[in-house]
């Protein structure tokens, strides 16, 4: 229960970070969550925060069209808009998950060394 709550709280912080353009906050959230949860939970928080922000943007406009247009301006095929969204989600998850996994592993190691 504590893990679930911390993931929800972490997702809320990541969401707030994304709202303000502080995308790296999701990594910090992941690192902090890693202290008592594993990397998967941390990644879930980062991803949930990113998706919540995406949903917030989607409520105000056509986010898939924006992705397609952005892909086109980036020189990618317009159909790669969906890939752009996938990449965003993957990075949000991976950043938080890897940060969480790192602190989790380091934390467990430290616990093991305690007498």
């Amino acid at each position, binding site marked *: 229960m504590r893990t679930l709550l911390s993931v929800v709280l972490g997702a809320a912080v990541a969401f707030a970070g994304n*709202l303000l353009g502080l995308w790296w906050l999701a990594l910090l959230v992941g690192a902090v969550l890693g202290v008592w949860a594993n990397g998967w939970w941390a990644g879930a928080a980062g991803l949930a925060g990113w998706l919540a*922000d995406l949903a917030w943007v989607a409520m105000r406009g056509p986010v898939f069209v924006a992705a397609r247009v952005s892909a086109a301006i980036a020189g990618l095929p317009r159909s790669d808009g969906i890939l752009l969204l996938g990449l965003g989600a993957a990075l949000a998850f991976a950043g938080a998950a890897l*940060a969480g996994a790192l602190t989790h592993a380091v934390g467990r190691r430290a616990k093991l060394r305690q007498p």
Partner: protein
Amino acid sequence: MGNLRWGRALLAAIGLAGVLLAQLGIIGGLPPLGSVLDPSTGVLSLAARSSLPTSERIHAPVPGTASIAFSHQGIVDVRATTDTALWYAIGYAEGRSRLFEMDLLRREAGGTLAALLGPHYLGSDEFQLRLGVRAAAKANLAALTAPARAILTAFTAGVNAARTWDLEHHAIPTPYLLLNETPAPWRPVDSMLVQEFLTEELDYTQEPVDLTRAVAHLGLARTEALFPIVPANPQSPFDTGPYPSHGLVPLDPPVQVGPRLERALASIEHSWNEVPSWARHQGGNSNNWVIAASHTTTGAPILAGDPHLPQTLPSIWLWLEARAPGYDFAGVAVPGLPVILIGRTPTTAWSLTDAETQATYFYRLTTSSAHPGAYLFDGRWRRFAVRTYRIAVRGARTVQLTVPVSADGPVLSIEGIPVAVDWLGDQVSPDFETILGILQARTLAQFLDALRSWRAPAQNFAFADAQGQIGIIAAGSYDQFRHGIPWLVMNGNGSEQPVGTIPFAAEPASLDPARGYVFSANQRPVGPGYPYYLGTSADFYANGFRADEIAHTLATTPRLGVRAVEHLQTSVTDILAHSLVPWLLAHVHATVGSPEAAALGDLRGWNDQMTVNSQAASVWWIWLGFDLRDAFDPLWRATGLAQPAGSVLVVNQLNDPLLEDLQAIDLGTLSPSVLAPPGKPVPSPIALARVALAQTTTWLEHHLGRPGHWAWGRLHRREFPSLTGAAALAYGPRPSSGDAWTVNAADGGLLSEQGPSWRMIVAFHVASLGILPGGESENPLSPWYENLVGPWWNGSYLPFSTRGVSRPIATWTIEGAG
């Protein structure tokens, strides 16, 4: 167990480092994905800007208040209680809707594209800096009067307020996010760079370079015959005289063209091709005309104008209506400038076409290893002035550029003999103040007075006022020469410099003419008796076919109304076909049942309309291309004359002087002997036409199938490319009517990306109508990105006026400081 955990930690650290590098944009070529893909502040936030604007209040450090209202179609209407607030508000409106476009324009002109877009644009930057565009913008800014400077200052503050809003609201245009760049603040000199952008687009040509190469291969006499000063066709001049009796006729032998000069000329041709296509206007096409009250159905003058420019998304124009205590106007402005260039006030209206007179003169300089850093001028060695630039290049090292500057202008060649360019755009031209004067003119006399100081780009200003006066004048600066041949590269030794300019009173003009109309379509504005030098038929004067149609319609229709003017503005009649197809049908015959017979049958029933469904239009256009190539290519090949891309030496349907020659040869007013390669027999125009017809049917069958499937729309398309370069954000390509010299022009061959960039009709006391192929916003998700393309394509218009937008959908209120 402990080692395993350390191994996991190490793997996680490595993975995290990789993700971080990707998110920070440190992996080669990738943008910073962390910020780019942040939904609320990255590229996806574009979704939140897909709706129409809502009303806002903005505080500004200007006296007075202003409102920026938007019509349903996005047309911007600015009202202000002070003039300063007006210029600020216009800057704000332009900045909010076109910041990326404005940045591109100033960067293209000022040679800083590579800093934003990378090494691909280094050649363009180098060309612009060699040409001296940045230096000219600075000089123009320094020459501004204090009131004009104050206007630019207020405008600049407005643009920067919009930029700040974009930054604070994570709303900067998507390309910046992908490039991890922030648009630099706007400066007054940037507006002068935009002015220079227009001057260069309209006035910079390299025909003397091309023609000098032609002389080296064809000889002077043949080059003069093929690219004459006075074109082979009459061209319907708008100023028919009487002309002043005196003038200057330069006649010296041309410079000798050796391999080193030819190399220099090739380097100039090559370097110009580095400039992006959206910044080069090589097809000279615009129309304007004014009909006097005595010849209209409305009882008041009607003015029509449609400037033809590269058609991009966003458009080069922002449709703007504005009113303040000192100003009241409506029309189109180029983003980056606070004033409209074409439009109307409550009592006047005007439109421009490019005068297309020669504005670029080239000089071969004499240098010596015994006098490094110097050139021979007036019999002594003079040191070059030197301009030094550091060109920032995104993703690469900064490049140092040194440009020697002679008395004849900067050295433009990169190889071979130094060749300098004297371009009128490098001189100070008070265009901005002139436009301010035009905005305040109430009569034809005041309008002309405002134009006295206009230098470059030379433009045909058509004008009308509510009292019924009409006129047209080709205002500009026209260099005159006593020695040298100005349409070729001249000697840069001080003996062939310009000796003066055409007096304002003698510039081509037609004021309140008895015939009741004035018009221009980039044709040569004067007849053969005009005593001053204006450039040659090759100096991208149009071929005169549009002018012929406009002149014919205005002369033969007793009274014209708005509908008739709309009809003429969207006409796709090919006047050259009207002249040559009967000749072709009279002289070329084919076996019954053959594809050639089918092609001739199409032409026989044709009304010269380049419509989408016309098969004859396809036959005509393809035949014309083959006939031109069959006529001129053998001469080019036999003399070793190359056809560099973008030059006047390329043999195709877009080469106006050669089209005029072909027309004259086929109709018997020019001897076909000009086509004969040295030592070869004179070709028969009829034999050439017959061969071209066979080639045409073979080509059409190969590309479109059997006769019956040759509709023009299957060959000819029109496209409006996006300034971002993204093909997916372009409009089209779509099957399109018209061709390069129909009044409704589709320039550029079978894929047209240039044409009417704005159509306007002002019928005094009745209606003002306008339309542009694009929209007011540069945001691809905005409903106003391309919403006006449809009506433009269909030949529809929207009403506008100086009275403002009725029932705006949103209003931004700018509250000033008192």
